[in-house]
């Protein structure tokens, strides 16, 4: 009986943890792209490992931009990266850099996601 009470308590604790860990809103600050003065471009690296880190990048409008994806995660879930607004659907190689060119002619917030739309990231183009 004691064991069962203990199991119940642990289960309740685990559920509480899951709710707190996954459902609590966590917003992260965007990371600004590095400006490359020599050739007037900007680029930013995003590590793909169980999600996109950082999951929000900030770009300057009108400056040609590149996002360099570095996929460490072998999961098939993160194999593709899809930018619906730019018509980009790229397969990311594991443990290699893959560069995606971003059209910065329009300002705004553009979401991107993995091929199954489970993991999300955001590109903010600031005027």
């Amino acid at each position: 009986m004691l064991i069962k009470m203990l199991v119940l308590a642990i289960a309740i604790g685990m559920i509480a943890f899951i709710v707190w860990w996954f459902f609590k809103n966590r917003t992260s600050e965007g990371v600004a792209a590095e400006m490359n003065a020599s050739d007037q471009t900007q680029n930013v690296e995003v590590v793909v490992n169980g999600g996109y880190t950082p999951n929000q990048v900030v770009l300057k409008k009108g400056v040609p931009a590149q996002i360099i994806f570095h996929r460490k995660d072998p999961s098939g879930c993160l194999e593709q990266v899809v930018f619906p607004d730019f018509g980009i659907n790229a397969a990311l190689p594991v443990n290699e850099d893959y560069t995606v060119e971003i059209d910065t002619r329009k300002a705004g917030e553009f979401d991107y996601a993995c091929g199954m739309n489970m993991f999300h990231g955001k590109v903010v183009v600031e005027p």
Partner: protein
Amino acid sequence: MSIQKRFVVSLIFSLPMLINMVLMPFGVQLPGGTWMMFMLTTVIMVVSALPFLRSAWAAFLNHQANMDTLVAIGTATAYFYSIYAMLNGQSVFFESAAFVITFILLGQVLEARMKKSASNSVQKLLNLQAKEAEVMRDGEFIRVPLNQVVVGDIVHVKPGQKIAVDGVITEGHSTVDESMVTGESMPTTKSVGDEVIGSTINGTGTFLFEARKVGDETLLAQIVEMVKKAQVSHAPIQKTVDKIAGIFVPTVLIIAILSFVIWYVFLGASVVNAMLFAVSVVIIACPCALGIATPTALMVGTGRSAKLGILIKNGEVLEAANTIKMVVFDKTGTITEGKPVVTDIIGDEQQVLTIAASLEADSEHPLASAILAKAKAAQISVSLIENFEAIEGLGIQARIAGKPAFVGREKLASDGDAADEFAEQRQELQQAAKTVVTVGYAGQIIGLIAIQDVPKPSSKRAIAALKQRGLRTVMLTGDNARVAQAIADQVGIDEVVADVLPSDKADRVEQLKESAPVAFVGDGINDAPALTTADVGIAMGSGTDIAIESGGIVLVKNDLFDVVRALELSQQTFRRIKLNLFWAFIYNTLGIPIAAGLFAGLGLILSPELAGLGMALSSISVVASSLLLNRAKLTTA
């Protein structure tokens, strides 16, 4: 290590356990017993399952959970519990972990294959491009790679060769197979002045053409770009799915914990059984079927329509096309050919045409070109004329072979009061909204020529097909009511809105939108405002000048029947998306309770292996269902 390799490893190492399971009832045992199973499963866990665990951990650190989380937790629970049970001499279920991994990897391998075939339509389009072109450089034709062809180059095309870029023929003639770009199956005849499209195939003739559009500017490049965007776009219906997917995995974990607690604590089941229920819940609840339901269908649907010369811009347009209740058409150039042609000749055809064509030979008037085209088709040669005189608002008169001749209004007849035996016929033709010109020779009226902008051959069938689908058809035109009504009667349009100024078209569409969702069909250049105002804008193109930006749906061919096909394809694709989502949801809403042991009282339970198999099948069935869109029947012209 690739998914394929991981699958092969787990298959090889789980086979002995599968054989063991089958032969168990006959008293045959795997040598080594439990220890053997432990070793086989350990290899699978380390080689094939570790990537799932690593990915699940990385996602966990980001406060995210995905299907890898479920696979990792499910199999790790089964595996580590079995080690504990083995050391304590209790029954183990190593094979569950092994089989689940094998099935899920099998599912992923098959899914990857099918997804590839769903997305390769764009690649196929790009592969159509010619690799080289024979270009005039310094007075000589030399072969250059495609990317070195520039605007203004004169390109030489031999029989059977691919046309490199878009351009206009400057010398020679041929037939060209344009099916790969426009979907038009019949080869088209081309001669000097006609446009040719890059990547289409030349027939038996040889010709030279001047490059007008190269690189990203070509029609094919634009089509590829549009299809690419469409394939990765999101349908609005996806938003609901995204919301669910976001909380799906953690919710499933909670359900799994609850089922363990309920079985073990409240129903007094053994730890092993309670754990099996919990593991089954975790394994069966794969959200990936939900995730791929919309994108795969969208990919196949838009890819297939592109092959038919129908470009659907994105998922939003596709969804909107389903709600359409009314189709509004522009008249000139959309329902009709857009240029007047001779429809009737009254009197002696040969003589009437000869006189009329001779008089009109140098005129630029659209009516004149209709007459000349007809004369050319009838192989009539023009006679010499003298004393040419154009009379404003009336017509032309001159002398042919010494006798006076005229074409235009009947008033030009020299004997104004001469018996006009054609009066009745003239009136009849005019009532049918045709423009009638009178032809006279040697003081007599010798006949009439009726000219009209006729409907395209496919218009009547297309409108009948739309009406059959329960859609109301409306014609919007700047022409007067009589002409508009005559055309409407010929093609069977329900309603006519005539005398609309070009600038008012968008307003009229706005008004029509109040009663029902509207699709507007027009050409992309003049009708751009109306196209954007309508719920769905369908831009018709012809040749290389397709205003791809103007319509939600762009028809490459200038064929009204493609409107029917476009709506049909959108509907089928959208229906498939809904079907996919329905199955993905049903699968989870039924699968989870069964796996949790809700129906255990009825003897209906799901082992983790079966749950793994079911999960693999769910995503495979969704992708397969999307691929079936390629085979869905369409109304053919």
